């Protein structure tokens, strides 16, 4: 197993308020890691550090080191466009652009300067297939992506993130805005894909984390409490507080 992203002593503060108090965590290639913890524990904030989505927030200060593929992503030499091509992201609210399905999925490629129409066509089809939304969209590629249902929109967004062939996809509560059926469809999609991509997923849904993740990291109040293989942690957590959280005693 190879580590693809490693975080070392990551502190993050907004003004005087410190939201992350030194997180040390490694992510393995081609695995699905779930970040769990009560609301406000910093799991989304931490996730957004991994592709530098927090950069534009005012008064933010991030220290420590995050390495992706052995490069320090916060170094001044890091090309943000390149980083985000390798580390894609899917959000809680399905946010397709107000364009056609085809243009949504092709957008990242076009931005990256791909001109070859055949390659784009092929990637769009492949990505939509990978995201398990090809059947519903293949005859409607020119239809506005926002005209689809929430679950379908979210899978279009997954296809959009996959189209540039990232190594890592960050998922910020990807199913929490969806109905149970759409959620389980997304879960299946992720299960099918996790041998090809590295997924890091924030979720509120412990059952979901238990069902589909290989590794789990439990955060609370800005600290990493425990991390390890999901099965081990769910069956025999090392710390009492993890056990309490997993058994629904708080959170």
């Amino acid at each position, binding site marked *: 197993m190879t580590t693809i992203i490693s975080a070392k002593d990551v502190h993050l503060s907004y003004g005087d308020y410190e939201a992350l108090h030194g997180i040390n965590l490694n992510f393995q290639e081609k695995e699905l890691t779930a970040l769990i913890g009560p609301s406000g524990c910093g799991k989304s904030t931490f996730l957004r550090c991994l592709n530098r989505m927090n950069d534009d927030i005012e008064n933010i200060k991030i220290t420590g080191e995050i390495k992706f593929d052995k490069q320090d992503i916060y170094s001044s030499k890091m090309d943000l466009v390149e980083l*985000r091509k390798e580390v894609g992201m899917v959000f809680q609210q399905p946010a397709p652009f107000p*364009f056609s399905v085809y*243009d949504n999925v092709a957008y990242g490629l076009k931005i990256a300067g791909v001109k070859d129409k055949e390659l784009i066509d092929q990637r769009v089809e492949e990505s939509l297939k990978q995201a398990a939304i090809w059947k519903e969209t293949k005859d409607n590629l020119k239809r506005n992506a926002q005209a689809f249902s929430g679950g379908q929109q979210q899978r279009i967004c997954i296809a959009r*993130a996959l189209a540039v062939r990232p190594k890592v996809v960050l998922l910020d509560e990807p199913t929490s805005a969806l109905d149970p059926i759409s959620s389980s469809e997304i879960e299946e999609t992720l299960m099918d894909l996790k041998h090809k991509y590295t997924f890091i997923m924030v979720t509120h849904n412990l059952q979901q984390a238990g069902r589909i993740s290989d590794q789990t990291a439990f955060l609370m109040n800005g600290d990493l409490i425990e991390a390890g293989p999901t099965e081990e942690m769910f069956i025999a957590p090392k710390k009492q507080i993890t056990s309490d959280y997993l058994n629904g005693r708080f959170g």
Partner: protein
Amino acid sequence: MDAKKRDKLATIIIYILVGIVVLILAGIVGNILISGIPHLSWHFLTSEASSYQAGGGVRDQLFNSLYLLILTTIISLPIALGAAIYLAEYAKDNWITNLIRTTIQILSSLPSIVVGLFGYLLFVVQFGLGFSIISGALALTFFNLPILTSNIEEAIKGVPQEQREAGLALGLSNWKTIRGIVLPAALPGILTGIILSAGRIFGEAAALIYTAGQSGSTINYADWNPLSPTSPLNVMRPAETLAVHIWKVNTEGIIPDATIVSAATSALLVIVVIVFNLGARYLGNKLYRKLTAAK
């Protein structure tokens, strides 16, 4: 009174209030159209206004109104768009931004006659542009900018934050996200903003009386060289618009058919605004579809 009855009463009151609004609007527009349309004729649209006799038309006024509208939009749209993008996307929440917003709000409630007199002093006198279309267009730009800016700003702010984040997460720069995603998404709202302000420009009289002037010059519609003094496109010629024409025939006009002319002109004004609205909406939809379709 129980909750059910109160709910019913509230509903009835709301319906009555809506009814009053609709009645007033329909009454005004209906009255203008009913009293004006019978006097609209091809002759009225295609002949010059007359100074003394009955039977004059509004050919030049109609052209001037449209021309001023287009010029004003060309001048004010880029400025308003830039300002709105700044305010919606870049401006930090601090006292300078608040000052800009407050200024815009004050400017948008400025009486148009004040804008007109200011335009008279600055463009007509100080810059020596005289009573001219360009003076009028500049005054109307002042009049139009605040509202257009806040309309566009609202439209841009209406685009969900998730769309911006999704753009950034795909590796787009801030500007590319704005240009490629936010602006197309905001386009319908931006167009509505332009249409709303265009209606105001088209019907504006007070700001133009002292800037574009109240008299027409001789226009030769065969001459499309913008530098020629008789060309309709010449921006240095004085130009009376439809709204100013209505004001003039009713205050100092000596034509015997002043009532008929102003009724017909009013109806024409309303009709053009309606046509413009529908047309812009149609164009907007088409443009939106084109921008968002597969390339």
